[in-house]
């Protein structure tokens, strides 16, 4: 039986269509500008949250429970495999820790001597900073890097501190440094109780350089 041209064309299209992966439709799914803007706002909030909590944990002014809660909440901002890196300005050794370990370490350090950690986000995050990445599994993620400056000061004992102005606050530090760090943020689709949801997560904090104040 010979097929006419129309039938042949239809058959060809059917074969082609059936060879395409089913989730190819998903792979094409992108965020609209408004969605990306909302998620960028959320990412900025998460960064603020992270920096604020780190300051709280390190300052050791709040109660143990509060700081512990801060750690728990911070951990949830990161992906499972995320690492936070730090570097001592003297030894130049870089060390990476999972977020929970790093934050607990901060807490333990701060119990010996309070640590002032201030952050400065040098370039606020914008939705255009996110780069779309097609993954091998035909999904998409959006990634952006944010540079921050971290001021780190381990305070001297109270009786050794002096009244200082904002410009010479390092006088009260046993140790201090300023580290330029890079935080990586990713937006990825995840399953949730309300269906698929674009989620923002931090994937790591890396040291760019460390130096003096």
């Amino acid at each position, binding site marked *: 039986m010979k097929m006419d041209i129309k039938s042949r064309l239809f058959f060809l299209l059917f074969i082609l269509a059936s060879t395409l992966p089913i989730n190819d439709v998903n792979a094409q799914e992108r965020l609209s500008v*408004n969605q990306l*803007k909302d998620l960028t*706002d959320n990412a900025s909030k998460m960064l603020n949250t992270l920096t604020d909590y780190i300051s709280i944990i390190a300052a050791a002014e709040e109660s143990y429970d509060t700081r512990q809660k801060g750690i728990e909440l911070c951990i949830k901002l990161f992906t499972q495999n995320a690492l936070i890196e730090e570097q001592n300005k003297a030894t130049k050794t870089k060390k990476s820790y999972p977020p929970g370990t790093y934050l607990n370490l901060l807490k333990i350090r701060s119990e010996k001597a309070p640590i002032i950690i201030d952050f400065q986000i040098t370039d606020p995050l914008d939705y255009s900073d996110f780069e779309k990445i097609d993954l091998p599994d035909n999904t998409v993620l959006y990634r952006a890097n944010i540079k921050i400056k971290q001021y780190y000061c381990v305070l001297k004992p109270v009786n050794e501190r002096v009244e200082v102005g904002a410009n010479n606050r390092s006088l009260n530090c046993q140790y201090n440094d300023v580290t330029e760090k890079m935080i990586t943020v990713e937006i990825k689709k995840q399953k*949730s109780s*309300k269906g698929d*949801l674009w989620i923002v997560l931090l994937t790591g904090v890396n040291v760019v350089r460390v130096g003096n104040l």
Partner: protein
Amino acid sequence: MEPILVLILSKNYQSCIYKDKNGDIVDIATENGKAFDFNVGDDKSDFKRLFKLWVSRFIDILNSSNETLKFTISDLHIKHLFDFNITENEQQNIISSIKAEGVKEVISNDLSQTIVKNIPLNSSDSGTLLLIRSIQNQCRIYLKNFDNKVITNGTSINFIPDPTIDIKVKLIFESIQRNDTTKAFEFDKEEIYIKEYLLNNPGDFVLETKITLSDGKDYEFSYYPREKNEKIAQQQEEFTLPNDISTFLRSNESNKQPDQKYAFYIYGEELNKDFYTQPLNSEFSSAEIKFLNENDIYSALKPLFAKKNIPIIVKPVNRKINFYTPFVTVPKGKVDDFLFIQCNTKGLEFWILTSSSNTFIPFQIDENINTNFLPYTNFEPNSQMELGLNKLDQINNFEINEIKFDTACKRITKIIEEYPDELNYVKCYLFIPTYFTYEIARHIEQQLSFLIGNAPEIVPFHSIFNKYLIQENNPTYLDHINHFVLLEHFNDKIYLSIAEKVSAYAKASSQFAFKLNSNIAESKENELLRHIDYFLKSLYLESKQCTFFIGNELAGHATFVSNFARIQPTIKLHLLAVTQINKIGEMARDYVITELLNSLPGSRKREPITAPDNIPEPIVTKNQDYKKIGLAAIAVFIILLLIFNFRDHNPGTTDSPKAVDTKEKVQEQETEQEAVVNFIIKISDVNKSSDLRAAEIRLNKDLFTENATVYKLGKNGTPIGIVSIEDYLSEVSLLTRQMAFEVKDIVKNSDGKIIEFSIIEY
């Protein structure tokens, strides 16, 4: 000597104590260091056995310590103190048992019952506070922890009231070993006074009053008996303020012993920090005093103590960042004069407590390290107490103020009527100066009850922030109120302040207190000043006893509900009913209240209070898009409503049951929304500590189910996260930046608890 043995009996604990000649508390209800174990309620014979044992021991001790006197059981006075969990019958049984043993007197004591009013029953985690009167008109306070161990090391006593722990207060009146023959003491009156004091200071005695430290172990405070102590009164009357501290010290030089020592106690969070007790007369901001450090103080004081022993500066120990600062460590050895240094917004405020006169002399060192004496007021607790006790005699004269109370209460009622939407919970709280006795307070309470038909709760004014409010587990006080309006008269000035409930005991970030006197003529509140000035003068003209508020604990802090919130929170004001207020004063107060209402964030400018203005505050929407969406939604809603009504062929569309039902639902939804918003506002208030915000969460957790969910939405409506309520609230309570937000789509379960809601954070 009349030996008194104090029995402390409760279901869980029994003790038999007395005070030995060294002033130490001796517990004889132990054997080989171990407490006897018996059950009060179940085994009376066991009690008798133990009681005999205790008494015989006590008598043995008495007889062995003083050979010239011999005591028998009939010489003993037994003072019993029952814990409140012993029934009355059990108490009576025990009293009968004691009497049957031939004891001279069993002194009745129902104080524990009174004190219990402030202590929720079944509080398992509790401490026990003992108040033990010693000789020389002083009380010593010991804290017993829940293991019933007396903590004798005063410095380790933590008097920071913890909202999760209720402190049971017990009173024990120890042996009154006095040689004076003036019969100045009247035991019952003292008892009443202490009872009142305790009621005014639940959970914490120490910091409310200027307290001397005797030897580093005990906290003490002085009080005077009912009868005026002529000697002290004379000293006080003759005392005039010296021009500066050196004059003062020189003038006292002749009275002092050569080896007299001064001790300085510095208390305050840190010297450069804004401490929780901001005095009412503060004028400087904390920034201005930040350069005053310990050395500055020392340098400033040193010359003043020339030729004398160099003062010892005692640093606070174990400083914790908290709103209370316990007393400092006291060096070993006796000191004669105490100098208390308190850091506050005015600079540093000092009080000298002289051992000779027991008088507090307030002075300050200003930002230029000059010493200035503060106006001499009824600052010292002694005179307050005397005044209070003397007022017992005047109780019958109180009726003269009934008309004024009537006016005040009517005024309050009128305000309620005029502002039903804002003053939706107004209850007359009566702020009673502490020098008023309990009887006077009760009397006023009755008067007010009669006048406004609603029994006011008596709240001692200086307890309001520091004491009652922290008792978050105590449902009887102030649970419904967000703000307090306080009108105070202090140091020739009227102070007006608004305080928010939760922040009041935290370090407040902003202060909203009119600091007024007639000299501040250039102030923009000229009109207000004039009224206040009249008020003040009239008060003085009217009464010499119009020092309503003494002490500086009543710091007027206000941390307003943030203006970011889209929904105007319902403002619940408490109006202060003051005593001895006259018409001018009332007018001033009304004016002030109007001003306060106007100055609340988000309030519309109001006309004077007499003008009716009860239009509800509209919900303010920040985002214009949302306004449009909201309008569109309303339009769709109305259309749907019409369609449904038309479909029902009901001509009375607006009155149809369905429509009414839907309206009710919408209203209900709005109320729920408001409740959630108000709650989130509270816990996101960055001016409060995270711990306080966490406490607020604990208080309100019943709003939500345990596994409630929060849907986070972006500004453009994008879902950006789903979190559990617990995580979300924790997150908000840790925020250090104020957030603006919108709450929507609240879903409740059949129990009325919220199971989910959406939030848009801006």
